[in-house]
């Protein structure tokens, strides 16, 4: 079966972003960009399913600017077989991405579509669910374990209070949580090999989907700063402060 994996190029998770002084957004010029950490887990899981003989082909896709090719190359170096970039400069919101992915999933006839549970830039946590909804297929979000057998995926999910296991009839959408796996490091020979793997570039118009943004960002601000705290000398001083100054215990 074929697995489709969606990845996103985002500001590296180690970067502390700054809000632009005109409050129009976050300054991402000259900032290190990387693959969204949850998407790395998604690619890793797909490649493991292929190595286990469950999947025959892993296709990695993304939508965005030309530089997203680097993100796709990283996924190819992890072990994906080929890549598709839906190239656009437009502001893509989750609903638009879900529509793009729907078109690609149908075209590729993928049996499993794996995404990260959320992107660390917009923190939306929507695209996977929206895609499953548009395709009218079941979903397993926040996956920490995936077993695929006999046309079914049995997925353990991280929910409030513990874990939950559900079974899905394929095709299905799975979104990854942090503990699903530990993505492998890409090695230099694999990076070299990845350069030779096919990477198709298409335009959103070719897919015939409406990608107009639905939400308008009016402004982006710094969160309120916390007032500077004090350092206390010892435990006794700490208890005294908590009891008499903060009055929280």
């Amino acid at each position, binding site marked *: 079966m074929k697995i489709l994996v969606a990845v996103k190029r985002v500001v590296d998770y180690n970067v*502390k*972003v700054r809000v632009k002084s005109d409050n129009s957004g*976050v300054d991402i010029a000259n900032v290190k960009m990387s693959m969204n950490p949850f998407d790395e887990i998604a690619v890793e899981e797909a490649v493991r399913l292929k190595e286990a003989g469950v999947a025959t082909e892993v296709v990695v896709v993304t939508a965005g600017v030309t530089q997203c090719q680097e993100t796709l190359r990283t996924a190819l170096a992890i072990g994906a077989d080929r890549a598709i970039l839906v190239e656009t400069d437009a502001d893509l919101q989750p*609903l638009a991405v*879900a529509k793009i992915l729907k078109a690609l999933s149908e075209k590729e006839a993928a049996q499993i579509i794996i995404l990260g*549970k959320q992107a*660390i*830039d917009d*923190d*939306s*946590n*929507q*695209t*996977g*669910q*929206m895609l*499953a*909804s*548009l395709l009218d*297929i*079941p*979903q*397993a*979000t*926040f996956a920490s374990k995936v077993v695929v057998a006999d046309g079914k995926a049995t997925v353990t*999910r991280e*929910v*409030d*209070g*513990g*874990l*939950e*296991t*559900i*079974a*899905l009839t394929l095709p*299905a959408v799975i979104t990854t*949580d*942090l*503990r699903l796996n530990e993505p492998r490091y890409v090695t230099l020979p694999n990076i070299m090999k990845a350069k030779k793997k096919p990477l198709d570039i298409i335009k959103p118009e070719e897919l015939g989907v409406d990608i107009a943004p*639905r*939400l*308008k*960002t*009016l*402004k*982006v*601000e*710094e*969160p309120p700063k916390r007032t500077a*705290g004090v350092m*206390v000398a*010892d*435990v*006794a001083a*700490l208890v005294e402060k*908590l009891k008499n100054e*903060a009055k*929280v*215990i």
Partner: protein
Amino acid sequence: MAALVIAEHDNQSLKAATLNAVAAALQCSPEVDILVAGSGADVAAGAAVQIAGVRKVIQIDAPALADQLAEPLAAQILSIANGYSHILAPATANGKNVMPRVAAKLDVAQLSDVTKVVSADTFERPIYAGNAIATVQSADPVKVITVRTTGFDPVAATGGSAAVEKQAAADSAGKSAFVGRELTKSDRPELTAAKIIVSGGRGLGSGEKYQELVVPLADKLGAALGASRAAVDAGYVPNDYQVGQTGKIVAPQLYVAVGISGAIQHLAGMKDSKVIVAINKDPEAPIFSVADYGLVADLFTSVPELTKALS
């Protein structure tokens, strides 16, 4: 137009997060209805009618809804969505799971983790792990929203007198099935609702030390237990203890961080706490930049000392 709140419940009890979502809904519209979709959820529906400010409670009961699976639940929400300008759910694992499915079917954008209602079509929400706050406006006819519970004071759980309206369940395809559930047993206050949280990090070194140091301190304070991602990944505690961008978002009266460095992803989950206390031996740890009270000390001696001092 009216707002619809999707109740968070386990059929038996209504979860407190529902009250925060109702508070947000009342800022969008004076007419707020609650949907209790479940199986044998009479008790949860009975609790929902008492919530202050609620107009009516719609109860949909069907075996397929017993486990809050996204597919049947989304189908029920869509079956009654007509006539509502706002559909809200708390941003819990369930809310995050089902709401984008509803939004996509309605062909509208979703507003995730809303922390403030500016007006009926404009909302504030954190982005980049809480390092920026975006004000966004939706032009869609229906606003589908998940509510960050720590952003809204809960409405009163009693004092309301709504009527229950039972409705028949809509058809829902059975392409997913519930297999089982493993919940972490705990007599402590729920992490997201606790007044005091004691959280441990990698500095503890082992799960035994977490039990030995963090648990007694939490007992003394009547606190919930939390942890950083590092402590969860190292296997010290179960993953539902995790506080952070990818775990639970909390805002207690007092948050005590023990052996936690304060990575961006952790801060995103707790920096709205009223008072933050950090105990760490590294004076350069970023946690001290958000702490109201910082103690640079070896946690292996200072935490037992603190527990003792509170006796």
